[in-house]
Protein backbone atom coordinates (compact mmCIF):
# COMPACT_ATOMS: atom_id res chain seq x y z
CA UNK A 1 0.00 0.00 0.00
CA UNK A 2 1.08 3.61 0.32
CA UNK A 3 4.39 4.44 2.01
CA UNK A 4 3.46 6.51 5.06
CA UNK A 5 5.29 9.74 5.74
CA UNK A 6 6.49 8.30 9.04
CA UNK A 7 8.19 5.46 7.18
CA UNK A 8 10.13 8.10 5.25
CA UNK A 9 11.32 10.00 8.30
CA UNK A 10 12.11 6.81 10.20
CA UNK A 11 14.16 5.62 7.24
CA UNK A 12 15.98 8.97 7.05
CA UNK A 13 17.05 8.64 10.68
CA UNK A 14 17.90 4.94 10.42
CA UNK A 15 19.89 5.31 7.20
CA UNK A 16 21.89 8.23 8.64
CA UNK A 17 22.66 6.29 11.83
CA UNK A 18 23.92 3.44 9.63
CA UNK A 19 26.49 5.88 8.29
CA UNK A 20 24.92 6.48 4.87
CA UNK A 21 24.87 9.90 3.24
CA UNK A 22 21.22 10.98 3.33
CA UNK A 23 19.13 13.77 1.84
CA UNK A 24 15.50 14.67 2.46
CA UNK A 25 13.32 16.23 -0.27
CA UNK A 26 10.11 18.06 0.69
CA UNK A 27 7.40 19.53 -1.56
CA UNK A 28 7.21 23.28 -0.74
CA UNK A 29 4.63 24.47 -3.25
CA UNK A 30 2.41 23.04 -5.95
CA UNK A 31 0.37 24.57 -8.76
CA UNK A 32 -2.15 22.93 -11.04
CA UNK A 33 -2.57 19.20 -11.02
CA UNK A 34 0.50 18.28 -8.97
CA UNK A 35 -0.09 14.72 -7.78
CA UNK A 36 1.41 14.98 -4.26
CA UNK A 37 0.49 17.59 -1.65
CA UNK A 38 2.74 20.19 -0.06
CA UNK A 39 4.83 18.59 2.68
CA UNK A 40 5.23 15.23 0.88
CA UNK A 41 8.67 13.79 1.41
CA UNK A 42 11.26 11.64 -0.29
CA UNK A 43 14.39 10.32 1.41
CA UNK A 44 17.45 9.50 -0.70
CA UNK A 45 20.75 7.84 0.25
CA UNK A 46 24.18 8.24 -1.34
CA UNK A 47 23.71 5.05 -3.36
CA UNK A 48 20.56 6.46 -4.97
CA UNK A 49 18.12 4.35 -2.91
CA UNK A 50 14.95 6.25 -2.12
CA UNK A 51 11.67 5.93 -0.23
CA UNK A 52 8.53 8.09 -0.38
CA UNK A 53 7.28 10.36 -3.11
CA UNK A 54 7.23 14.03 -4.07
CA UNK A 55 5.35 13.70 -7.35
CA UNK A 56 3.92 10.23 -7.74
CA UNK A 57 6.84 9.32 -9.98
CA UNK A 58 7.02 12.30 -12.35
CA UNK A 59 10.20 13.99 -11.13
CA UNK A 60 11.64 11.51 -8.62
CA UNK A 61 14.54 10.66 -10.93
CA UNK A 62 15.62 14.29 -11.21
CA UNK A 63 15.21 14.86 -7.47
CA UNK A 64 17.37 11.83 -6.70
CA UNK A 65 20.11 13.21 -8.96
CA UNK A 66 19.93 16.60 -7.23
CA UNK A 67 19.94 14.87 -3.85
CA UNK A 68 23.24 13.17 -4.62
CA UNK A 69 24.73 16.65 -5.22
CA UNK A 70 23.23 17.90 -1.94
CA UNK A 71 24.65 14.92 -0.03
CA UNK A 72 28.08 15.62 -1.55
CA UNK A 73 28.01 19.38 -0.95
CA UNK A 74 26.10 19.47 2.34
CA UNK A 75 24.22 22.54 1.06
CA UNK A 76 20.41 22.53 0.76
CA UNK A 77 18.78 23.75 -2.46
CA UNK A 78 15.36 24.54 -3.84
CA UNK A 79 14.39 23.14 -7.23
CA UNK A 80 11.34 24.09 -9.29
CA UNK A 81 9.73 21.85 -11.86
CA UNK A 82 6.95 23.15 -14.08
CA UNK A 83 5.30 22.86 -17.45
CA UNK A 84 6.73 26.21 -18.52
CA UNK A 85 10.16 24.74 -17.91
CA UNK A 86 11.62 22.62 -20.69
CA UNK A 87 13.20 20.52 -17.95
CA UNK A 88 9.76 19.45 -16.77
CA UNK A 89 9.03 17.62 -19.99
CA UNK A 90 12.43 15.92 -19.92
CA UNK A 91 11.89 14.74 -16.35
CA UNK A 92 8.38 13.55 -17.12
CA UNK A 93 6.14 16.13 -15.45
CA UNK A 94 3.77 16.01 -18.39
CA UNK A 95 0.74 15.85 -16.12
CA UNK A 96 0.49 19.64 -16.26
CA UNK A 97 1.44 20.48 -12.69
CA UNK A 98 4.29 22.52 -11.24
CA UNK A 99 6.08 21.76 -8.01
CA UNK A 100 8.83 23.32 -5.94
CA UNK A 101 11.00 20.93 -3.93
CA UNK A 102 13.45 21.63 -1.10
CA UNK A 103 16.35 19.19 -0.91
CA UNK A 104 18.45 19.20 2.25
CA UNK A 105 21.17 16.99 3.71
CA UNK A 106 20.51 14.97 6.89
CA UNK A 107 23.65 15.59 8.91
Amino acid sequence: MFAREDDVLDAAERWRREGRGVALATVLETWGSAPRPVGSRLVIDDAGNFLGSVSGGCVEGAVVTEALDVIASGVPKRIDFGVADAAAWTVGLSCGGRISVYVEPVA
Partner: protein
Amino acid sequence: MRLDLLAALNAERAARRACVVVTDLASGAQRLVRAAELDAERAQDPLAPAMRSALAEGRSTLVADGSFLAVDVPPPRLLLIGAVHISQALAPMARIAGFDTTILDPRTAFATPQRFPDVPVIAEWPDIALPSYGLDPFTAVAALTHDPKVDDPALEAAVAAGCFYIGALGSRRTHAARLERLAARGFSAEALADIHAPIGLAIGAASPPEIAVAVLAEIIAALRRPALARLKGAAA
Protein backbone atom coordinates in the same frame (compact mmCIF):
# COMPACT_ATOMS: atom_id res chain seq x y z
CA MET B 1 18.02 18.55 8.76
CA ARG B 2 20.22 17.87 11.74
CA LEU B 3 20.07 14.29 12.95
CA ASP B 4 19.16 15.35 16.51
CA LEU B 5 16.22 17.41 15.21
CA LEU B 6 15.10 14.50 13.02
CA ALA B 7 15.30 12.15 16.01
CA ALA B 8 13.24 14.57 18.14
CA LEU B 9 10.68 14.84 15.31
CA ASN B 10 10.44 11.06 15.05
CA ALA B 11 9.98 10.80 18.82
CA GLU B 12 7.01 13.23 18.62
CA ARG B 13 5.52 11.22 15.77
CA ALA B 14 5.94 7.94 17.61
CA ALA B 15 4.10 9.47 20.59
CA ARG B 16 1.29 10.69 18.27
CA ARG B 17 1.93 14.35 19.13
CA ALA B 18 1.46 17.05 16.48
CA CYS B 19 4.44 19.32 15.71
CA VAL B 20 5.93 21.69 13.12
CA VAL B 21 9.43 21.88 11.66
CA VAL B 22 10.12 25.50 10.71
CA THR B 23 12.73 25.95 7.98
CA ASP B 24 14.14 29.37 7.07
CA LEU B 25 14.63 28.70 3.36
CA ALA B 26 17.19 31.49 2.93
CA SER B 27 19.56 30.31 5.66
CA GLY B 28 18.50 26.65 6.01
CA ALA B 29 18.06 27.17 9.78
CA GLN B 30 15.50 24.81 11.32
CA ARG B 31 13.65 24.34 14.59
CA LEU B 32 11.05 21.94 15.96
CA VAL B 33 7.93 23.42 17.56
CA ARG B 34 5.61 21.07 19.45
CA ALA B 35 1.87 21.76 19.23
CA ALA B 36 1.71 21.84 23.03
CA GLU B 37 4.16 24.79 23.02
CA LEU B 38 1.81 26.94 20.97
CA ASP B 39 -0.75 27.89 23.62
CA ALA B 40 -1.84 31.49 23.84
CA GLU B 41 0.62 32.43 26.58
CA ARG B 42 3.56 31.70 24.31
CA ALA B 43 2.31 33.91 21.48
CA GLN B 44 5.57 35.91 21.23
CA ASP B 45 6.65 33.73 18.31
CA PRO B 46 5.70 35.77 15.21
CA LEU B 47 4.93 32.55 13.36
CA ALA B 48 2.64 31.20 16.11
CA PRO B 49 -0.67 32.12 14.38
CA ALA B 50 0.47 30.58 11.09
CA MET B 51 1.66 27.47 12.91
CA ARG B 52 -1.64 27.14 14.77
CA SER B 53 -3.72 27.31 11.61
CA ALA B 54 -1.37 24.97 9.73
CA LEU B 55 -1.68 22.45 12.57
CA ALA B 56 -5.47 22.81 12.68
CA GLU B 57 -5.67 22.03 8.97
CA GLY B 58 -2.90 19.45 9.04
CA ARG B 59 -1.31 21.24 6.07
CA SER B 60 2.31 22.14 5.51
CA THR B 61 2.74 25.60 3.99
CA LEU B 62 5.09 28.37 2.94
CA VAL B 63 4.71 31.60 4.92
CA ALA B 64 5.34 35.19 3.94
CA ASP B 65 8.68 35.61 5.70
CA GLY B 66 10.26 32.91 3.53
CA SER B 67 9.87 30.08 6.03
CA PHE B 68 8.37 26.69 5.35
CA LEU B 69 6.16 25.08 7.98
CA ALA B 70 6.32 21.29 7.70
CA VAL B 71 3.37 20.06 9.74
CA ASP B 72 3.29 16.57 11.19
CA VAL B 73 -0.03 15.48 12.63
CA PRO B 74 -0.52 11.87 13.70
CA PRO B 75 -2.05 9.58 11.08
CA PRO B 76 -5.77 9.17 11.75
CA ARG B 77 -6.93 6.05 13.53
CA LEU B 78 -10.34 4.42 13.62
CA LEU B 79 -11.53 2.34 16.55
CA LEU B 80 -14.57 0.19 15.82
CA ILE B 81 -16.49 -0.88 18.90
CA GLY B 82 -18.13 -4.12 17.88
CA ALA B 83 -16.86 -7.00 15.76
CA VAL B 84 -20.12 -6.93 13.82
CA HIS B 85 -21.17 -7.19 10.15
CA ILE B 86 -20.77 -3.46 9.53
CA SER B 87 -17.23 -3.67 10.93
CA GLN B 88 -16.37 -6.53 8.58
CA ALA B 89 -17.06 -4.19 5.65
CA LEU B 90 -15.86 -0.99 7.31
CA ALA B 91 -12.48 -2.23 8.54
CA PRO B 92 -10.97 -3.03 5.11
CA MET B 93 -12.50 0.10 3.52
CA ALA B 94 -11.12 2.33 6.28
CA ARG B 95 -7.71 0.73 5.96
CA ILE B 96 -7.65 1.49 2.22
CA ALA B 97 -8.72 5.09 2.96
CA GLY B 98 -5.66 5.47 5.20
CA PHE B 99 -7.01 4.92 8.71
CA ASP B 100 -5.12 2.72 11.16
CA THR B 101 -8.10 0.60 12.10
CA THR B 102 -8.64 -1.52 15.21
CA ILE B 103 -11.65 -3.57 16.33
CA LEU B 104 -12.66 -3.86 19.95
CA ASP B 105 -15.31 -6.27 21.21
CA PRO B 106 -15.32 -8.18 24.51
CA ARG B 107 -17.37 -10.99 22.95
CA THR B 108 -14.68 -13.49 22.04
CA ALA B 109 -16.95 -15.34 19.62
CA PHE B 110 -17.20 -12.16 17.50
CA ALA B 111 -13.73 -10.72 17.97
CA THR B 112 -11.65 -13.28 16.11
CA PRO B 113 -8.78 -12.85 13.64
CA GLN B 114 -10.65 -15.21 11.29
CA ARG B 115 -13.49 -12.71 10.95
CA PHE B 116 -11.07 -9.77 10.68
CA PRO B 117 -7.94 -10.98 8.93
CA ASP B 118 -6.60 -7.52 8.03
CA VAL B 119 -6.82 -5.47 11.24
CA PRO B 120 -5.89 -5.82 14.91
CA VAL B 121 -8.72 -7.22 17.03
CA ILE B 122 -8.91 -6.61 20.78
CA ALA B 123 -11.22 -9.06 22.58
CA GLU B 124 -11.62 -6.97 25.72
CA TRP B 125 -13.94 -4.55 27.49
CA PRO B 126 -13.44 -0.84 26.64
CA ASP B 127 -12.60 0.12 30.23
CA ILE B 128 -9.75 -2.37 30.26
CA ALA B 129 -8.40 -1.93 26.73
CA LEU B 130 -8.80 1.81 26.06
CA PRO B 131 -6.16 3.16 28.48
CA SER B 132 -3.41 1.32 26.63
CA TYR B 133 -4.93 1.99 23.18
CA GLY B 134 -4.79 5.72 23.98
CA LEU B 135 -7.72 7.64 22.46
CA ASP B 136 -6.71 11.11 21.19
CA PRO B 137 -8.03 13.96 18.96
CA PHE B 138 -6.67 12.18 15.87
CA THR B 139 -8.78 9.09 16.51
CA ALA B 140 -12.33 8.32 15.29
CA VAL B 141 -14.59 6.02 17.30
CA ALA B 142 -17.66 4.24 15.92
CA ALA B 143 -19.78 2.35 18.44
CA LEU B 144 -21.61 -0.42 16.61
CA THR B 145 -22.55 -3.15 19.10
CA HIS B 146 -26.09 -1.94 19.96
CA ASP B 147 -25.20 -2.99 23.53
CA PRO B 148 -24.95 -0.13 26.05
CA LYS B 149 -22.65 -2.21 28.27
CA VAL B 150 -20.05 -2.10 25.50
CA ASP B 151 -20.88 1.08 23.57
CA ASP B 152 -21.46 3.51 26.46
CA PRO B 153 -18.04 3.22 28.17
CA ALA B 154 -16.33 3.61 24.79
CA LEU B 155 -18.43 6.68 23.94
CA GLU B 156 -17.69 8.23 27.33
CA ALA B 157 -13.95 7.71 26.80
CA ALA B 158 -14.15 9.11 23.25
CA VAL B 159 -15.99 12.26 24.37
CA ALA B 160 -13.48 12.78 27.20
CA ALA B 161 -10.52 12.35 24.82
CA GLY B 162 -11.89 14.81 22.23
CA CYS B 163 -11.88 12.28 19.39
CA PHE B 164 -12.34 14.04 16.03
CA TYR B 165 -15.28 11.79 15.19
CA ILE B 166 -17.65 9.88 17.45
CA GLY B 167 -20.53 7.92 15.98
CA ALA B 168 -23.05 5.53 17.50
CA LEU B 169 -25.34 3.03 15.82
CA GLY B 170 -29.00 3.13 16.73
CA SER B 171 -32.27 4.83 15.95
CA ARG B 172 -33.19 8.31 17.16
CA ARG B 173 -35.09 6.69 20.03
CA THR B 174 -32.15 4.51 21.00
CA HIS B 175 -29.92 7.56 20.85
CA ALA B 176 -32.26 9.67 22.99
CA ALA B 177 -32.12 6.97 25.67
CA ARG B 178 -28.33 6.84 25.30
CA LEU B 179 -28.04 10.63 25.74
CA GLU B 180 -30.10 10.39 28.95
CA ARG B 181 -27.77 7.71 30.35
CA LEU B 182 -24.64 9.68 29.46
CA ALA B 183 -26.09 12.94 30.82
CA ALA B 184 -26.81 11.11 34.08
CA ARG B 185 -23.12 10.20 34.13
CA GLY B 186 -22.23 13.91 34.14
CA PHE B 187 -21.66 14.73 30.47
CA SER B 188 -22.91 18.12 29.24
CA ALA B 189 -25.39 18.38 26.37
CA GLU B 190 -22.72 20.30 24.45
CA ALA B 191 -20.16 17.50 24.77
CA LEU B 192 -22.74 14.87 23.81
CA ALA B 193 -23.75 16.87 20.72
CA ASP B 194 -20.45 15.69 19.19
CA ILE B 195 -21.84 12.17 18.89
CA HIS B 196 -23.10 11.42 15.37
CA ALA B 197 -26.32 9.42 15.66
CA PRO B 198 -28.01 7.91 13.80
CA ILE B 199 -24.57 7.01 12.46
CA GLY B 200 -23.43 7.68 8.89
CA LEU B 201 -24.29 10.15 6.13
CA ALA B 202 -27.94 10.02 5.09
CA ILE B 203 -27.56 8.16 1.80
CA GLY B 204 -30.31 5.63 2.45
CA ALA B 205 -27.81 2.88 3.26
CA ALA B 206 -29.55 -0.44 3.91
CA SER B 207 -27.09 -3.35 3.99
CA PRO B 208 -24.12 -3.52 6.40
CA PRO B 209 -21.59 -2.70 3.61
CA GLU B 210 -23.70 0.29 2.54
CA ILE B 211 -23.87 1.51 6.13
CA ALA B 212 -20.08 1.09 6.25
CA VAL B 213 -19.73 3.44 3.26
CA ALA B 214 -22.02 6.00 4.94
CA VAL B 215 -20.01 5.82 8.18
CA LEU B 216 -16.64 6.10 6.44
CA ALA B 217 -17.83 9.11 4.43
CA GLU B 218 -19.00 10.78 7.64
CA ILE B 219 -15.63 10.12 9.30
CA ILE B 220 -13.76 11.60 6.31
CA ALA B 221 -16.01 14.66 6.39
CA ALA B 222 -15.22 15.15 10.10
CA LEU B 223 -11.51 14.86 9.33
CA ARG B 224 -11.41 17.16 6.28
CA ARG B 225 -14.30 19.58 6.62
CA PRO B 226 -12.74 21.94 9.18
CA ALA B 227 -9.91 22.63 6.72
CA LEU B 228 -12.36 22.86 3.82
CA ALA B 229 -14.57 25.37 5.65
CA ARG B 230 -11.53 27.52 6.43
CA LEU B 231 -10.40 27.48 2.79
CA LYS B 232 -13.87 28.49 1.62
CA GLY B 233 -13.98 31.21 4.27
CA ALA B 234 -10.63 32.58 3.10
CA ALA B 235 -11.76 32.59 -0.52
CA ALA B 236 -15.01 34.42 0.24
